């Protein structure tokens, strides 16, 4: 009989997750309140600037999620650190990353319609982000292809590392190519200046922190679910073997 992995068993982990969840919820609620009711409209964008308290944090979290997935994949591929938990973490983080990438695209599109006059333009940033979304969807599909555990984990890890190549391309696309999308405003990589101030800056910062906490909470739950699913598969095998043995004994 297989023993439940530590994360499944531990009550302390559950309590920590609950605290994290409540903190994230309070953070998001405060961001929404500040973003919708407290911060002033922008001089050029008007009220549409309020969408930017959620759009850049979505993109940041997606990058973070893919970074974690790549690091975990690298740790899985490295023989000295190879462990199933890294494969699970990579899968969990990538799935959450895909959700956040989808939300980045949708929230950007909702902002783009009144600002650019179109829901979608084949801008370098938008196109590379859409590519990122598809690449990681493919990664998630690859994880579901049947196969031996370590074979599946290894090919998924390689795929995650290949897909991650697109992340710096997305970030730097506004610098490399002529783009409709604005350059980074929080910390511009060329000028090293920030173009957001006062309550707007604090609200945006809170948005980054809150959605990062949401990411951690979601990834932890997704990880635990993956752990339970693996355990369930093992137990299914145990049941089948035990039933066969019982049949053999009865026969």
């Amino acid at each position, binding site marked *: *009989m297989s023993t*439940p992995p530590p994360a*499944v068993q531990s009550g302390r982990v559950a309590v920590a997750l609950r605290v994290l969840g409540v903190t994230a919820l309070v953070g*998001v609620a405060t961001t*929404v309140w500040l*973003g*919708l009711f407290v911060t002033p409209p922008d001089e050029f964008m*008007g*009220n*549409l600037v*309020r*969408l930017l308290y*959620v*759009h850049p944090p*979505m993109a940041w979290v997606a990058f973070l999620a893919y970074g974690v997935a790549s690091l975990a994949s690298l740790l899985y591929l490295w023989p000295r650190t190879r462990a199933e938990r890294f494969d699970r973490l990579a899968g969990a983080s990538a799935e959450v990353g895909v*959700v956040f990438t*989808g*939300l980045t695209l*949708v*929230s950007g599109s*909702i*902002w783009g*319609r*009144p600002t650019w006059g179109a829901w979608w333009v084949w801008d370098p940033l938008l196109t590379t982000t859409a590519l990122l979304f598809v690449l990681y969807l493919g990664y998630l599909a690859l994880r579901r292809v049947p196969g031996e555990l370590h074979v599946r984990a290894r090919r998924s890890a390689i795929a995650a590392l290949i897909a991650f190549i697109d992340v710096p391309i997305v970030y730097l696309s506004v610098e490399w190519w002529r783009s409709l999308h604005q350059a980074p405003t929080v910390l511009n990589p060329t000028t090293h200046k920030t173009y957001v101030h006062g309550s707007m800056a604090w609200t945006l910062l809170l948005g980054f922190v809150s959605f990062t906490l*949401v990411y951690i*909470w*979601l990834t932890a*739950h*997704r990880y*635990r*679910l993956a752990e*339970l*699913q693996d*355990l*369930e598969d093992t*137990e*299914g095998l*145990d*049941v089948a073997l*035990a*039933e066969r*043995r*019982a*049949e*053999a*004994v*009865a026969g």
Partner: protein
Amino acid sequence: MNGYVEAGYVVVLGTLGTYGVTLVARERSARRRVGAGSNKARNAAGVGAPAPVGVGAPAPAGAGTPAPAGAGTPAPAGAGTPAPAGAGTLVPQGDASAREHRAVEEEGPGSTPRAMSP
């Protein structure tokens, strides 16, 4: 505001909320299934199952001492008959005497039970 802002917030928060709730629900359901699966595997293996009262059948080879009558769940069909070594035991898992007995059988007297060896 102009409808776009509200729509953006509804989509973002709605999606994240739905995804989070779904994850928690799936996790709880998986936890229940794993719990049920453990019991099923236990029952199928006959682990922790009692010897039926009055049967008095010999313990299977390598199984050690029979479990006390009335403890645990009823034995599955076929329990109580001789079984291949180590299969379909009538001894609760973790029973020290059973481990010791098995180790002695397998490795001779004076050997350390495998489960207890460092």
